């Protein structure tokens, strides 16, 4: 075991071996959807697509919660803003059909604007007061989406917006089946690659951000706001930047979500969704980019796995389905959250610095 680890560490120093490793990972990621499609079915490729979207969301929230230490319980509001921006600009609802490359930055921009708008009044608040105000904002946005169908019909109310245009890149409609080099790609496959690219790009941005001047300012604010301020950090601007940056990620994810689904409704943006993304961040390891992505992938796929196994396992064990599989899976999900936190309070994969801090923290609340 030890020699194996040692050889791995040795490999990391070796440039050429590193590139081989990257190539291997890239190859696995590239063939993954086909392997899944052929072994356990296309549903799971879609599950994977959603998991990647959640990874995007979790990365965005990680900037706000993990880096800057601002507890945001209404993050789903930005997801909703992005999704509805996309839905309004590319569907028969308003008769607009703008192209992908126009809506993507526009959606991100609108979400960022909302991030600043919601962030500005809450700058003075700390800790749990901030949490409850952001929660309130999230609910307000959802209620407005739910009711803005009269007197002027903008969002189509609880029914939601239908027939949203699919993503079109270089003339390829991502929801259709295509064939390249004799390989058949389905919509789920295309979305996988697009989402994967975006998730990898976001991870890269986050890692670079963390070590940048701004990232260090965020972390300084997280650790001690007063000290950060006295070291010359403009806490107001830097906090607003965290909100805007996090919101941008949410907005992009929201836009992709609405075009991937083809429809949006306020149902998708309930408080539980915000809580879910927060759980991904904390469970994975707050402030650690890879940990957060791991948390997102796990929490997005786990309920699906439970959904598909809850009935058959009962069938096998007792000969019939005794417990409602839907509530059973959420029950197990809740249990998993509790257990992981009890056993690893700093997350599944905390960043090395945080782990050290946690090891010598004696009195922290």
């Amino acid at each position, binding site marked *: 075991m030890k020699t194996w680890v040692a050889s791995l560490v040795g490999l990391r120093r070796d440039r050429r071996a590193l590139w081989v490793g990257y190539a291997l990972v890239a190859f696995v990621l590239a063939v993954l959807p086909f392997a899944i499609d052929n072994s356990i079915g296309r549903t799971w490729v879609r599950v994977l697509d959603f998991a990647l979207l959640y990874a995007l969301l979790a990365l965005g929230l990680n900037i706000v*919660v993990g880096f800057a230490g601002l*507890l945001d319980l209404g993050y789903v509001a930005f997801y909703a803003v992005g999704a509805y921006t996309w839905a309004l600009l590319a569907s028969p609802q308003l008769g607009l059909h703008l192209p992908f490359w126009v809506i993507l930055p526009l959606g991100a921009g609108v979400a960022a604007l909302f991030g600043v708008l919601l962030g500005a*009044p*809450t700058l*003075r*608040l*700390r*800790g*749990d*007061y901030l*949490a*409850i*105000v952001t*929660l*309130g*904002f999230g*609910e*307000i946005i959802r*209620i*407005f989406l*739910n*009711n803005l169908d*009269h*007197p002027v019909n903008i969002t189509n109310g609880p029914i939601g917006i239908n027939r949203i245009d699919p993503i079109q890149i270089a003339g390829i409609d991502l929801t259709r089946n295509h064939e390249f080099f004799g390989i058949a790609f389905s919509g789920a496959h295309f979305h996988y690659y697009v989402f994967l690219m975006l998730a990898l790009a976001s991870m890269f941005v986050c890692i670079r951000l963390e070590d940048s001047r701004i990232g260090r300012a965020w972390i300084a604010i997280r650790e001690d706001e007063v000290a950060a301020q006295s070291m010359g950090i403009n806490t107001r601007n830097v906090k607003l930047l965290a909100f805007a940056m996090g919101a941008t990620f949410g907005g992009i994810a929201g836009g992709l979500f609405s075009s991937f689904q083809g429809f949006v409704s306020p149902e998708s943006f309930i*408080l539980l969704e915000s*809580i879910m993304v*927060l*759980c991904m961040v*904390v*469970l994975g390891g*707050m402030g650690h980019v890879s940990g957060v992505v791991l948390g997102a992938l796990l929490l997005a796929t786990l309920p699906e796995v439970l959904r598909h196994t809850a009935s058959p396992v009962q069938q096998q064990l007792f000969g019939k389905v005794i*417990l*409602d599989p839907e*509530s*059973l899976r*959420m*029950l197990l*999900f*809740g*249990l*998993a*959250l*509790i257990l992981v*936190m*009890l056993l690893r*309070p*700093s997350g599944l994969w905390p960043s090395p610095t945080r782990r050290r801090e*946690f090891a010598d*923290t*004696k*009195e*922290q*609340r």
Partner: protein
Amino acid sequence: MDIFLQQVLNGLVLGSVYALVALGYTMVYGILGLINFAHGEVVMIGAMVALTVMNAMAGMGTALPPQIVLAAAVVTAIGVCMALSFSIERVAYRPLRRAPRLAPLITAIGVSILLQNLAMLIWGRQYHTFPRIVSATPHNIGGASITDLQIIIIAVCAAIMTGLLLLVHYTRLGRAMRATAENPTVAGLMGVNINRIISATFVIGAAMGAVAGVLVAANYSIAHYSMGFTLGLKAFTAAVLGGIGNLGGAMLGGLLLGLIESIGAGYVGDLTGGFLGSHYQDVFAFLVLVLVLVLRPTGLLGERVAERA
């Protein structure tokens, strides 16, 4: 005129229940600095247990006087909720008392999801009609109507809150609770058994939550496995509105939130010329919350600045 009075009465009924639940949040927050997300679920379990007891006693055949049925149901609900809350604290919160701040928050969310789905497995997805025990004949007060049940709700809430204030301010246990909220370490050095005090806080909050659950279910004559979540959210909002960690603040915040909701919902249509309907009831509650916190970040009665955050 009478519409206004009616909305005020409705708001008072709603608000006193919010206040009762909010106390459970604020007491725990005052001592542990933890948003106990599971509290709303404890309230729901209280209503469900009371419902089960009532149905079971009605099914026994012998016609017991309704007072006894109600008393048995409430007592059972209180007992179950106290035991539940005690074990939640033991299992999910106590091991994490020194962990990073967000860890217990996540376990609280986990417990909430767990309890809600457990309730769904036990009691099913359907809405249960809560038996009507108190007569629903409305009394007329100056053009507005109020039922016996609503009078009872206000009276019970007022009595419990007075009792709590007396407990906290004039008993040994209450003094220990205040000391622990002030500074747990020093309180421990002074000979207060902190663990016992924290358990007591959870248990007292749960008992009040159980009563609140029965009252809410009786008021709407409906009980449902998901009734706890929104109620808990509103109650927590009320606690923050009043200044979290402050008992008087929770009561004030609860009443205010109830009044704002019912009056806001009653008048928002007229005020905006029909542009916004009564669906915006919740927006009102949250808007007021945001405004209050932006102008006065510690809540209405909060004196302790949130410096520990």
